[in-house]
């Protein structure tokens, strides 16, 4: 299992992406798939850093990467108390976002389109967001 823990600052998103890319590089995953996976994890982490931790560098976020056969499991761990429910959140449509003229609301659309499954686990102030992606041709 690969794992990375960094403080909740936006500057660490690049490090998270580098970590994900490096972890996936030794599998036979197309660079297009790697790009999309990096993107989905970046979006989830950016949301946690910004909305749940308000960029507090004393808080931490951890990304773990596991694989079971050709299914990759990406876990994002954090310890915030906010009760945003990613699974119940209804993503807006793109025309609505444009009419709205605000920069936002596209991250979770991307996550939903990229990942096969999203799972949330909460346990005593410890939150896990689990993303599943199956890559048929991936071989270590």
């Amino acid at each position: 299992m690969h794992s990375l823990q960094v403080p909740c600052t936006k500057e660490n998103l690049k490090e998270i992406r580098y970590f994900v890319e490096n972890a996936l590089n030794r599998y036979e995953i197309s660079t297009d798939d790697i790009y999309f996976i990096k993107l989905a994890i970046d979006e989830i982490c950016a949301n946690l850093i910004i909305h749940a931790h308000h960029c507090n560098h004393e808080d931490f976020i951890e990304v773990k990467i596991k694989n079971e056969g050709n299914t990759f499991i990406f876990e994002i761990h954090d310890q915030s108390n906010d009760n945003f429910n990613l699974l119940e959140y209804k993503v807006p449509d793109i025309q609505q976002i444009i009419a709205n003229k605000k920069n936002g609301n596209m991250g979770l659309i991307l996550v939903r389109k990229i990942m096969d499954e999203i799972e949330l686990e909460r346990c005593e102030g410890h939150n896990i967001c689990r993303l599943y992606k199956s890559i048929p041709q991936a071989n270590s």
Partner: protein
Amino acid sequence: MELLIQNEDKFHIISIIGDLDASSSVIFDSALEEAINAKAKNILIDCSQLDYISSPGIGAFTSRLEECNQNNIQLVLYGMSPKIENVFKILGLDQLIVIKKTKEEAKIYANDAQFTSPLH
């Protein structure tokens, strides 16, 4: 990320170098806002050295689409890699944002569009 801002004739060109993510998009956002406020009529975004884009980077464009359309500002992106174009595509934005292959094509498009009355 770094930005390179140049004016070629009537074209205001912003080149994005590196990663446009939640951390760097703030700077790009203001550069784009500044160009619009300065009444640039043709804003070309050079994406040939853009390595990565995530939603706040894309949002910088979508949040200003209406304003650009209303003010007859041509906002044209060019030179992006297929990986990055894919991100616009899965959001369906390739139909709403003008994306061209080369700087030349971008300039020709902006020029033509400027002189045909906009539909909006």
